[in-house]
């Protein structure tokens, strides 16, 4: 669906790709078609390089390499580098080498195709800082994974792609742009007067409908914003609730005092690493977030809010 209006000079387009809802918004309607085409181009390349679910992707081939050094495209090499940077920046709390755990927990296909229920899973997990054992040779264009390790780039690739695409669209057309890949949002270029109004919510859903659960709308002028939550993207195996934020210490879905964390940062990638790490770190996330200076909104399981580093109070109770 493509629409033009809502606010003066803003135009947007929505579609689905890489297993998520995609939205691009531009400040100059003239460039909407070009912006969408450019974003689609980026997403096609990303999917072919980084998808864990399509059999012809480079990542599937890399994960099947059983410890062998594998040639990769510059795009996948960059995506792996970004993921390893995220692991390093988070002291391993955002770990791209948890692909095998996700598969064993049942997350082995696009989430929309995942059976909601399934039998019990048996998981043997040994943590050995796998991410630091990934060998990326950018000059040679190769990657070697420890045997038995599979990469999952879900915690970084979408956010990184949103940043790249937003920058590319702004550079190409000169307009302001918002790119949302499944709720990972990157901004580039001039913003609308008052900033980009963005609704923070706990579950995926279109902006045109009232959110299910707590929400708050904030204005953001630049950078990126991301949200991680344990109340969405859930499934059951053997009666146990699973979710997609995995604790590298256990190989299991993270047990956190927070059900949802939202962060703004200079880039969407930084924001997404911060939110994922915060879920994993649970209560100890607060001092780390404060030290980072990144504005953050954390929601505990009773719906209580913790607002950090200038995150605004809600103007009124917005569907808490």
């Amino acid at each position, binding site marked *: 669906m493509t629409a033009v209006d809502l606010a003066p000079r803003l135009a947007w387009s929505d579609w689905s790709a890489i297993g998520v809802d995609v939205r691009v*918004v531009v400040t100059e309607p003239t*460039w909407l078609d070009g912006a969408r085409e450019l974003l689609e181009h980026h997403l096609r390349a990303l999917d072919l390089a980084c998808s864990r679910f399509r059999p012809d992707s480079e990542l599937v081939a890399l994960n099947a390499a059983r410890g062998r050094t594998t040639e990769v495209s510059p795009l996948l090499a960059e995506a792996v580098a970004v993921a390893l940077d995220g692991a390093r920046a988070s002291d391993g709390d955002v770990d791209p080498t948890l692909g095998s755990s996700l598969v064993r927990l049942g997350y082995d296909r696009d989430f929309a195709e995942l059976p909601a229920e399934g039998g019990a899973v048996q998981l043997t997990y040994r943590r050995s800082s796998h991410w630091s054992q990934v060998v990326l040779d950018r000059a040679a264009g190769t990657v070697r994974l420890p045997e038995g390790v599979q990469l999952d780039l879900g915690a970084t690739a*979408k956010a990184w792609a949103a940043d790249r695409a937003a920058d590319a669209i702004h550079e190409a057309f000169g307009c302001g742009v918002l790119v949302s890949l499944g709720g990972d949002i990157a901004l580039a270029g001039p913003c609308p007067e008052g900033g980009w109004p963005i609704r923070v919510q706990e579950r995926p859903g279109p902006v045109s409908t009232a959110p299910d659960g707590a929400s708050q*709308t904030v204005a953001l002028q*630049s950078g990126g914003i991301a949200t991680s939550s344990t109340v969405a993207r859930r499934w059951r195996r053997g009666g146990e609730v699973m979710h997609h934020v995995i604790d590298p210490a256990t190989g299991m879905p993270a047990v956190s005092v927070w059900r949802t964390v939202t962060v703004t940062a200079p880039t969407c990638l930084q924001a997404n690493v911060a939110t994922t790490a915060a879920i994993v770190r649970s209560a100890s996330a607060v001092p780390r977030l404060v030290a980072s200076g990144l504005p953050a909104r954390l929601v505990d399981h009773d719906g209580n809010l913790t607002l950090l580093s200038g995150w605004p109070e809600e103007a009124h109770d917005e569907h808490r």
Partner: protein
Amino acid sequence: MDYNEARIIARAKGRRRITAATVAFAVVGAAGAAGIAYVESSATSANATAGTSTSTGTTTSSDDSSVATTSNSDDSTSTTSGTASTSGTASTSGTSSTASTPTTTSSGAVATTHTS
């Protein structure tokens, strides 16, 4: 920016005939918009497949509207070499190197952030 991205941009900017030179200038124009004062047009080499038509030289443009002044018959049969300079005027204000702090707003949202 790769060749296909440049083609998309050139087409979006209304170039009906997408030639090697068009692509080269699209890349240069994009670089100008990004605040890069001078670039060597590397995209031309990326597109320099075996060709039958060659244009060379140095071209200076104040904006990418000069794309239209360079024409090749077909990008499958043309190569372009040389350098181009540009003084792009597109504003990059608002491009983020730092995050803005979110503020309260009563405006209707244009996007939602949620777990992905």
